């Protein structure tokens, strides 16, 4: 049911999007021998990879290997100690306008309803795509749209956080443990969302412990 909702929403979005822009502009993220230090401690070194349109990377590695640090670096919150990290082909679009972040914390206000949280994210991120109601329908949570997020279970909160990806249109998704607390059907829904994003020419970097389940995703292992 969730996949069909997601699919129908994306069908609708695709129709709308063909009128505006068919797919995301070309984009290339390149990391060259990136070294990460936090608090003087070496987290990882010599990391190189590249990512283009329609590609996905599954970041793996033991706990504390630096998966979240790498995501913070791509966001521009941390600077590489050595090496370089750059995004080409985006023209003069600033980095924050390219990125969609779903961190390991959900980034939701428990006192606000799921719909209000998504409306806030849409206002903050701009580039409006699906409405908060459509996005919640796509993640199978239309029935709890008016409930404060504090009343939702961990898995439901995760789904609301993932619904944020749909309310505004950004080419590069950075996901930190996107499937944590999700049940089997919600994981299938997430895979559906990610596949639809790749088909549109988006790119995904997801830090994960379990298998991502995404066809064609490359694995990038950090640390030993």
């Amino acid at each position, binding site marked *: 049911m969730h996949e069909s909702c997601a699919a129908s929403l994306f069908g609708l979005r695709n129709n709308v999007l063909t009128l505006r822009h068919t797919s995301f502009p070309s984009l290339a993220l390149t990391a060259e021998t990136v070294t990460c230090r936090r608090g003087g401690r070496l987290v990882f070194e010599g990391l190189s990879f590249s990512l283009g349109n329609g590609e996905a990377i599954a970041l793996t590695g033991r706990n504390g290997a630096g998966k979240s640090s790498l995501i*913070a670096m791509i*966001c*521009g*919150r*941390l600077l590489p100690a050595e090496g370089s990290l750059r995004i080409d082909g985006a023209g003069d679009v*600033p980095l*924050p*306008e390219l*990125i969609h*972040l779903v*961190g*390991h*914390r*959900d*980034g*939701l*206000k*428990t*006192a*606000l309803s799921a719909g*209000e949280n998504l409306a*806030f*994210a*849409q*206002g*903050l*991120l*701009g580039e409006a795509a699906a409405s908060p109601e459509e996005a919640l329908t796509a993640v199978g949570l239309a029935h709890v749209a008016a409930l*404060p997020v504090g009343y939702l279970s961990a898995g439901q909160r995760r789904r609301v956080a993932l619904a944020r990806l749909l309310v505004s249109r950004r080419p590069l998704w950075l996901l930190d443990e996107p499937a944590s607390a999700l049940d089997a059907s919600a994981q299938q829904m997430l895979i559906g969302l990610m596949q639809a994003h790749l088909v549109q020419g988006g790119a995904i970097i997801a830090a994960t412990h379990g298998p991502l389940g995404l066809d064609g995703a490359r694995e990038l292992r950090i640390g030993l």
Partner: protein
Amino acid sequence: MRRAFFAILRRDLALATRAGGGGELALVFFLTLVVLVPFALGPDLNLLSRIGPAILWLGALLATLIGLDRLFQGDEEDGSLDLIRASVLPLELAVLAKGLAHWLTTGLPLALCAPLLGLLVALPAEAMLPVAATLLAGTPALSFIGATGAALTASLKRGGLIVPVLVAPLTVPVLIFGVSASNSALGGTIPFLTPFLILCALSLAAIVIGTIAAAAALRQAD
């Protein structure tokens, strides 16, 4: 960018009205302080009305400071701060939106209630408007000086009282000119406008410096 600014402002205003928002707590704390002082001072009406403006200003200062530690801490804990930092909005403007929301839900209600609470400290009628006006002009300085302290302690789990302790010394000039402008309405040789305009200048400077300093402190947290 304007949309993102108003999104943060609207969200913080909505949060302040929900349970545990803190806006009404500051007001109740203000009321409690002002009610307690006459009991401590005893039945000396002249003394009470002479120090009335000082009591109201101290009450407003403390009421503003107690809720400040949550200004960025909530966003830091639930990850919304990461989201805000990954948005197009410069962090300075995000801090400005949050500080403005804090003032609208804390400083503004305090200033509007001050004439009413003035009755409890036997404030003369002609001093009520000046006290409210000084609080209106001076509380933005408290919110934005406080925002800097709140940003420094955003990632401390039990920051609690550190923010008021850090911030209180910095608010001394605001307190001095606020009380002095209010007192000028009770008589004396200083015209009202002299300290009042300095108070306005302090607020404007605090909005600029506090915004930049708080954003810098939040960036350092990583």
